[in-house]
């Protein structure tokens, strides 16, 4: 039995990493063991965070639907359940006034301990002191560190921390070594300040609980991989993150990890890109929704490595064969990763471009089904009638997942600094282009023609044996996955 993975995603970049983990889980690249996740962000309306939670929700619904079927069919697609502890904000107990000065009860300190208040004045400018922090720490680790350091061990007994720590404790039973991975950027505000603080707190908590040696603690640090310019006249709403500071922040953070926190983590993954992708400027909330980037795919692969490998005192490096281009061969464990991503993409593509539309077209005549649907739907069976609410719901859920998965893949390809050569993503919105979907498809043209013709795939669906007992939309999707596998 493999170990359980717990992921603590800190800030917007951390959430984007988990969006990638969700998509790779759908592709069956983790284990059957569940992944548990907690998002940490003071900006509860962060666009990237919302998108990651939406993707997660879509995946969870689909995975729940598929879970029984997957065990029967023995397929890795959607095999990993993901449990979410949702979002925790350091301002959870302070819903109204989220100024830094209010968080530190500056006015009281000023009366009770003027010298301490003066020290506070030295550390933070008047603008920083009165800045509302519900849009995050605005790229200022100094603000974030102050807020995050207020979290204490007692808070770790409350929900959601209490629940996740209890789960980690339970996962250490039977000689297992649960993995706890903290991920986020170290060049902005929230991740840079949150990762070391939370890692130290967790490490101390595990020591206190006597499970530190059983738990493997990992850090996934994102180095600068995007930047932005502040447009003239932009509503910066006071202080804001500045891309010019990213390298400086990174240097300081790395120095901190080397000198102060090197013993905290059992494994550290550092990920970055030489050319930074241009994103739109945003101070936070809904507008801070940057397009998924291939670095996050690497982050999800790092999480996979952390879960599946047991590396001891090893320094592993992964780099691309040539700059500016990203091929399948550039991915660690490329053959397995390619198979997982490709098979899930082929299923999602076929479902959206053909199956879903046909099922919709024949929905009103469930007694007159084309032969390829008959192994899955039966007009005489109230449970498996195509027009039954439960069946329509299954179709809707599978369609949502397919759209979300292809959306993420498409976004990963739309990188302005590097050419990502995994899929011909322009084909995602066309019909009957299955054979042209994958770049560097290793199959010979003959088997391509045979395997990729939709009529032939439907023939395979029609010949589905009744003993396979795959019924309804879930059975159809599973059969489709098995018949499009390459």
């Amino acid at each position, binding site marked *: 039995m493999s170990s359980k993975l717990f992921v603590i995603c800190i800030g917007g970049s951390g959430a984007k990493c988990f969006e990638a983990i969700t998509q790779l889980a759908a592709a069956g690249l983790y284990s059957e063991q569940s992944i548990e996740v907690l998002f940490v962000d003071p900006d509860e309306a962060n666009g990237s965070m919302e998108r990651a939670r939406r993707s997660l929700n879509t995946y969870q619904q689909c995975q729940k639907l598929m879970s029984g079927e997957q065990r029967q069919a023995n397929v890795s697609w959607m095999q990993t359940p993901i449990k979410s502890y949702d979002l925790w904000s350091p301002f959870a107990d302070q819903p109204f006034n989220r100024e830094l000065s209010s968080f530190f009860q500056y006015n009281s300190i000023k009366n009770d301990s003027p010298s301490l208040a003066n020290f506070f004045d030295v550390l933070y400018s008047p603008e920083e002191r009165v800045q509302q922090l519900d849009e995050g720490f605005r790229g200022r680790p100094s603000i974030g560190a102050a807020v995050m350091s207020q979290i204490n061990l007692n808070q770790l007994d409350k929900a959601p921390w209490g629940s996740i720590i209890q789960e980690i404790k339970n996962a250490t039973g039977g000689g297992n070594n649960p993995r706890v991975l903290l991920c986020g950027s170290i060049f902005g505000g929230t991740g840079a300040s949150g990762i070391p603080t939370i890692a130290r707190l967790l490490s101390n908590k595990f020591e206190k609980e006597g499970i530190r040696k059983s738990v493997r603690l990992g850090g996934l640090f994102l180095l600068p991989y995007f930047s932005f310019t502040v447009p003239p006249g932009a509503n910066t709403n006071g202080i804001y993150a500045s891309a010019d500071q990213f390298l400086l922040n990174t240097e300081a953070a790395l120095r901190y990890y080397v000198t102060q926190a090197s013993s905290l983590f059992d494994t550290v993954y550092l990920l970055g890109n030489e050319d930074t992708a241009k994103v739109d400027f945003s101070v936070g909330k809904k507008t801070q929704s940057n397009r998924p980037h291939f670095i996050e795919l690497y982050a999800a692969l790092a999480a996979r490595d952390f879960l599946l490998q047991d590396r001891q005192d090893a320094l592993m490096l992964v780099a691309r064969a040539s700059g500016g281009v990203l091929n399948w061969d550039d991915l660690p464990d490329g053959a397995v990763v390619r198979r997982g991503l490709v098979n899930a993409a082929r299923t999602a593509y076929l479902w959206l471009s053909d199956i879903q539309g*046909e099922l919709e077209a024949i929905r009103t005549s469930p007694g007159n089904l084309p032969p390829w649907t008959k192994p899955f739907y039966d007009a005489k069976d109230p449970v498996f009638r195509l027009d039954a609410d439960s069946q329509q719901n299954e179709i809707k859920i599978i369609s949502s997942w397919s759209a979300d998965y292809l959306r993420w893949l498409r976004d990963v390809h739309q990188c302005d600094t590097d050419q990502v050569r995994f899929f011909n993503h322009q084909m995602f919105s066309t019909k009957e282009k299955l054979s042209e979907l994958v770049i560097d498809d290793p199959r010979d043209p003959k088997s391509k023609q045979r395997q990729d013709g939709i009529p*032939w795939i439907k*023939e395979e669906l029609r010949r589905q044996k009744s003993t396979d007992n795959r019924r309804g939309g879930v059975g159809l999707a599973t059969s489709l996955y098995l018949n499009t596998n390459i």
Partner: protein
Amino acid sequence: MIITTVEIIRLFVFPIMGLLLMFVLQPALYQSQIIRLTDVTVEKWLPNGYYPQASLVFGCAIFAALAWCVWNTMSPPGAMSVRKSRSIAWWILSLVPILGAVGATIWSRKAVLGDKFGSDVATLSLVALFSLDILFLYWLTTATTTPGNARDLPPGARLFGR
């Protein structure tokens, strides 16, 4: 293979049965005078009129049925739109034996074959018998042997659980 063994067997059995129907049973109806021909000698009409005409109908029907089955084996319909056009194609293909039967019926008349071998009296019975033959050789064959996802496209195929 899309086409099953049972379908291949049916594809041989129905033409053989059609062959017996058209070249043994139906001529016997004329020879035994169950269908009486008053304007021609049956013994002369059968080899010079009926058999060539029946061969034409048989050939057209078998050609259309085989073409349909081979086409759907080599290129099964996938999308709904293809299924719809394939349905229309079945009807278009059915024109081959129908036109063959019309041609054979015209060919049987005295105006074409002359007084010695032609028969105007046989026209009505030939229309009925050739229609039956087309139903058997084209419709029944395609309705029971069409392979794969086209199996339900011939009209009435569902009567046979297709």
